[in-house]
């Protein structure tokens, strides 16, 4: 594993560890040296240097994740470090098995790293107790999944308010009603998931993710099961949350069009961060 302390060359924007990198961009800013993985990160930094000298909202630091299946060990993440910035739309891209979902699970405190640390607003949250993790998840995060993952035995409305029940809070019916109206689901609230179309189910799932008014929305291929027209509508809802309500949005996707709209692209290959974001966009054209 890489020792961070001796060679601390870290990209302040994307969070990539550059201590063993063959090439990187070095910039002096106010008499301090900064290292960037690529010109893309350098440009972002130069546009808003104050932002990138603060603590990122979410930070993965040298994360390793090893899955054991019997005697077989699979290294899914290999010393990954990334930053997620408040109010940013981050797209995580990469081929199947590159560890995208695992990264998202780490960011959403659904999974524990085998080693390495996770920081939320500068606080180490990698070794939280179960209950603390649940509390943070219900307060800070909203999840949207590819398979919608609604409870089949609950109506749309009950699905949407389920996180509020788990948070032990009262339903903010005014805000909820407005959101339901905005998504055009008012007529469908008493329906069960199997009575809804895929797009409707995903909108219900999105409203569920928003029910506790979280800061961060995490989406695992949220449009992966939908046709492109429906998918685009869902994506529009998501990006509007980012643009209008300033929610931090992290989406795992295969779709280059989605990634194109992101403020930051995290490209993964074999559990490692791939350098140079601009070339990344060309590496995964589909």
């Amino acid at each position: 594993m890489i020792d961070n302390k001796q060679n601390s060359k870290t990209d302040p924007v994307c969070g990539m560890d550059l201590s063993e990198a063959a090439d990187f961009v070095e910039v002096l800013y106010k008499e301090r040296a900064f290292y960037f993985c690529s010109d893309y990160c350098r440009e972002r930094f130069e546009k808003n240097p104050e932002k990138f000298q603060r603590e990122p909202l979410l930070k993965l630091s040298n994360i390793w994740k090893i899955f054991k299946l019997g005697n077989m060990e699979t290294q899914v993440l290999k010393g990954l470090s990334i930053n997620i910035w408040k109010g940013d739309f981050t797209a995580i891209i990469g081929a199947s098995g590159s560890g995208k979902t695992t990264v998202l699970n780490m960011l959403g405190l659904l999974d524990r790293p085998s080693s390495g640390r996770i920081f939320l607003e500068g606080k180490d949250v990698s070794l939280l107790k179960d209950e603390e993790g649940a509390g943070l998840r219900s307060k800070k995060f909203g999840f949207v999944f590819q398979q919608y993952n609604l409870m089949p035995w609950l109506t749309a409305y009950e699905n949407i308010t389920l996180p509020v029940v788990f948070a032990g809070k009262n339903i903010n019916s005014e805000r909820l009603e407005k959101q339901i109206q905005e998504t055009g689901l008012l007529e469908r609230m008493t329906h069960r998931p199997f009575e809804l179309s895929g797009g409707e189910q995903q909108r219900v799932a999105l409203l569920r993710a928003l029910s506790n008014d979280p800061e961060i929305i995490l989406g695992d291929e949220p449009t992966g099961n939908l046709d492109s027209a429906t998918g685009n509508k869902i994506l529009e809802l998501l990006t509007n949350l980012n643009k209008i309500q300033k929610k931090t949005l992290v989406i795992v996707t295969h779709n280059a069009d989605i990634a194109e709209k992101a403020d930051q692209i995290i490209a993964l290959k074999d559990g490692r961060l791939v350098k140079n974001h601009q070339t990344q966009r060309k590496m995964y054209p589909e």
Partner: protein
Amino acid sequence: MFKSFLILTLKSIRYRPLRSWLTILGIVIGIMLVVVIFALGDGIQNAVARLLQQFGSDLIIIFPGKETNPLFAFAGGQKFKEDDLLNLNKIRGVRVVVPMTIAVLNVEFNGEKKSVMFHSQPWREYRIIAEESQALKLVEGKWPESDDSREVLLGYRVAFKLFKTRPRVGDDLIIKGRRFKVAGIFSEVGLQEEDNQICMSHKDFQALTSQRGTASSAALKLEKGANIDLVAKQIKFQLSRQEVVRDFSVLTPEKANQIIGNVFSIIELVLVVIALVSLVVGAVGVMNTMYTSVLERTKQIGIMKAIGASSEAVLSLFLIESGMIGLVGGILGIILGITLAYIIGLAAANFGVRGLFSFASLDFFGFFVILVITFITGIISGILPARQASRMEPAEALRYE
């Protein structure tokens, strides 16, 4: 919070109706069995208590053999000399001695032949005991005056159920080839033995069976204010001097109660064990279902955790579910158990066994206890599966397909 969880659980149970009902059925059968068993136990106890009441509080019963179960000892083989029994009359405090013999004889009425239990005793003395101590009344006819008048008294069911055409007072029955006149009919007692027997005078019976001067048992009625324990001791002493029957029992009401109490504590123990076993079987069913349900809902557990459910919340959901299964099973078990006991009771009454079931000890408190027990059983059987569910890592559970 609990209310929301309860609603969530009910919806989840209703989503898988067949599975849920089958599990509930396991508990229902167990509790049904418990209710029927307890009702039966109560019923038997009541029947025995009534039997004892018939003996009256001032009666002493003497019969050959050890004081084991007084219900079955009367049919024992050895016989006393009648005179030995009649001599007990000389003991101070004894008012009447009624020597008795029991035998099964063939009876013919209107060409129909039946085997009936016969009970023989001297009329005059027996009438005192029957009317004063046992509250035994005649619904028709009157007590025979003389011991050699060849008259019989019929038990209620012998008169009304045994024969196709019912014998009436004044009709003749042919017993062992001889004619006997029906003098009267007893009112219904509700006990098999009493209602299905024919009473005959001791003299007639001895002439009929050529068993002269013997009796298989005796009932003694005491004078008012006599010390029953003292009299019983004197009876024992006097009887120990006769040599025909070496082993005999002198049964006072108190002693009978004691013996029956002992028998019943054993029966009750057996019933409790059966009840526990059936409850355990039901609990294993609940546990099995809950484990399957946890496995089935692994992904849902992952989703719930992802959207903010704590391990505690998942644990509560599963525990409430298993508790509800137990509770609903308990409620239905009680209802079906009572229905079943009632139906069996009606059927039994049709065959002359009245009061086979009693719900005396199954009052609201009893039901409440049963429900608490089933609820707790449900929760206990749910603990292990629920813990497994609550401990799942959310990411791992989400990966499960």
